[in-house]
C-alpha cells in the first residue's frame, strides 16, 4: 500500500511541473520536490526495505528451522538404522549339528555380539527359542530344543549376562524355518532364534 501511494505522489508532482512549463514563458524553476512527499517517500522506502529484510529474516528462520528439523529427522533415522542394525545382530540365529545342543565354535562370535548388545542395553530382555529338524522323534525334539535354547542361554550367562533377562522355550520340530526334506533344509531348521521380549526400543550400539 505504501509503494502505491508513493507512485501516486510522484505522478501528481510531475503533472504540476508539466502544466507550468507549457503556459507562457516563465523563468525556469528548479522543481522543488514537496518536502512532505519526499519524506513520505523516504519513509516508504525505509519501510519497504524493512519489510523486505523481515521477509528475508523470516525465510532464513524458516530455512534454519527446516534444516534443523531435517537434521533431527536424519539423526533419528540414523539412530533407527543403528537400532535396526543392533536388532538384526541380536536376532541372528545360531545353528546346531544333528542331535547336538552344544554351541558351535563358528557361532560363538555371534553370541559374543549379543553379549555386548545386552551389556549396552541394560533394560533389554530376550527369549531364546530352540528348534529341531524333522528327523528326530517328535516328542524327543521338545527336550532337544530345550537343550539348544539352554546352551545359548548358558553361554550368555557365563559371559556376564544376568540369567533373569533371558527366557527360553523349545518348539521341537513344530516350527520349521524351511520346508524341505534335505540336509539344506534340516541344517537351517536346527537353530536357536532370539527375540526381544522387552526394552527393545532405540537399542544402543555396544
Amino acid at each position, binding site marked *: 500500500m505504501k509503494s502505491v501511494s508513493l507512485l501516486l505522489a510522484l505522478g501528481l508532482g510531475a503533472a504540476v511541473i508539466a502544466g507550468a512549463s507549457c503556459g507562457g514563458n516563465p523563468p525556469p524553476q528548479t522543481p522543488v520536490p514537496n518536502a512532505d512527499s519526499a519524506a513520505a517517500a523516504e519513509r516508504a522506502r525505509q519501510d519497504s526495505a524493512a519489510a523486505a529484510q523481515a521477509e528475508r529474516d523470516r525465510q532464513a528462520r524458516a530455512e534454519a528451522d527446516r534444516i534443523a528439523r531435517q537434521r533431527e529427522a536424519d539423526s533419528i533415522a540414523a539412530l533407527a538404522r543403528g537400532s535396526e542394525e543392533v536388532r538384526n545382530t541380536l536376532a541372528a540365529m545360531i545353528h546346531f549339528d544333528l542331535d547336538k545342543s552344544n554351541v558351535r565354535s563358528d557361532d560363538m562370535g555371534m553370541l559374543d555380539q549379543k553379549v555386548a548388545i545386552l551389556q549396552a542395553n541394560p533394560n533389554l530382555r530376550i527369549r531364546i527359542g530352540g528348534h529341531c529338524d524333522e528327523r528326530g522323534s517328535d516328542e*524327543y525334539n521338545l527336550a532337544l530344543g530345550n537343550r539348544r535354547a539352554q546352551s545359548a542361554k548358558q553361554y550368555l550367562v557365563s559371559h556376564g549376562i544376568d540369567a533373569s533377562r533371558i527366557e527360553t522355550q523349545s518348539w521341537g520340530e*513344530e516350527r520349521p524355518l524351511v520346508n524341505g526334506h534335505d540336509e539344506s533344509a534340516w541344517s537351517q531348521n536346527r537353530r536357536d532364534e532370539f527375540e526381544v521380549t522387552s526394552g527393545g526400543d532405540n537399542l544402543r550400539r555396544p
Partner: protein
Amino acid sequence: MGADFALDVTAAGDTTVATLHDIAAAGIRRTVRAKLPRPGDPDFRQAVHRLADQALQAALGTPGIAATRILFVKDGKVYQIDQDGAEQKLVSSTDRQAMSPAWGADGQHFAYMEFQAGKGWLYLQEMATGKRTAVSTTGTALDFTPAFSPDGQTLAFSRATEEGTDLYTINIKNNCCLRRLTVGRFSDNLSPTFSPDGQRMAFVSTRPGLPQIYVMAADGTDQQLFAPFDYGVTGASNAPEWSPDGQSVAFHRDVAGTLQVFVLDVRTRTVRQLTSVGRNEDPTWAPDSRHLAFVSDRSGYRQLWIIDLDTGRIRPLLQQSGARLPAWSPRLSEAPSSTP
C-alpha cells in the same frame, strides 16, 4: 463256506438281535440283544460298533475294537476319528499349536499339550462335553507328553527346565502334590507310560547317551534299563507305550537312519522289530493289545496305519498327509445288554 462263524442280525421290535452261529459245532454260540438308536442319531455308529465288539467277543473270547476312537495331531491340532476312519472331528483349540494327545483309562477324558506364551501347557478335556481345564501346576515351564495313571488319579508328564527334561506326576483329582520322579542333570527323561496295573512306568531317558527305553516304579524308585540295546550300535529309541494287557511295550527305534516300530516283551525283556518298509513311528495300542496304530510314510507321505500283530497285516487308517502322534482309546461306553 470255509467260515468258522456266521452272524445273523434281525430286528425284533425296537431291539436288534445278533445271533452268532458256530458253524463247526452246528449250533448257536450266543445271542446279543441291543437297542440301537435310529440311523442318523449321533450314537448310532458307536452303538453298532459296540454290538460288533460283543459278537466278536462271543466268537473269539476277547471283544473287538470297533467301538474305539483314535486321537491324533495334524497341522498342530488334535483330532479324533473312529477306528474305521469315519467321523473326524477337531477337539483342541483352534488358535494354538497342540501335541501329544493321551487317553484316560475310562475313555471319557483325554489330555494334550498346547504351546502358549513360550511355555507348554497341559490340558484335560472331557470327551462328551468338550470342556477343558488347564492342569493346575502347568504354565510355568514346558510341560509335555502327559499320561494318565490307570485309576485316573495321576497325570505323569515331562517338564523341560534349565536342568533338562524330567518326569513329574501330579494328582489331578485334588489338584495337588506335584512330584519330581527323575533328576537327570545331564540327561533328559520324558514320554512316560503307565503299566496297566499302575505299579510301573516306562519312559525315555538319554542317560546312556542316546535316548533309550527305561522303566521304574510309579513312585520314581528302582529306575533301570527296560529295552536292551547294544551300546554304540543300537539307534535312539523313543515313544514307548505299554500295552493294555501289560505284556508288551511298543516303541520306535532308529535303524539305519530311519525309524521302525519295535515291541518289547516285558517278561523276557527281548525286542522284536515289526516294520521295515519306510519310516514308521509313534505306535499306540488298541484295547485288544493285538493291533497297533502308527505313523508311516510307506505310501509316500506320513499318515496313520494299523498293524495286526497276529497276522502281520498292515492297512491304512487315514488317507491324509501329515497325521501323527496317534493315541488309541480304550473301549468306549457301556456294552449293550446281552443274553448268554
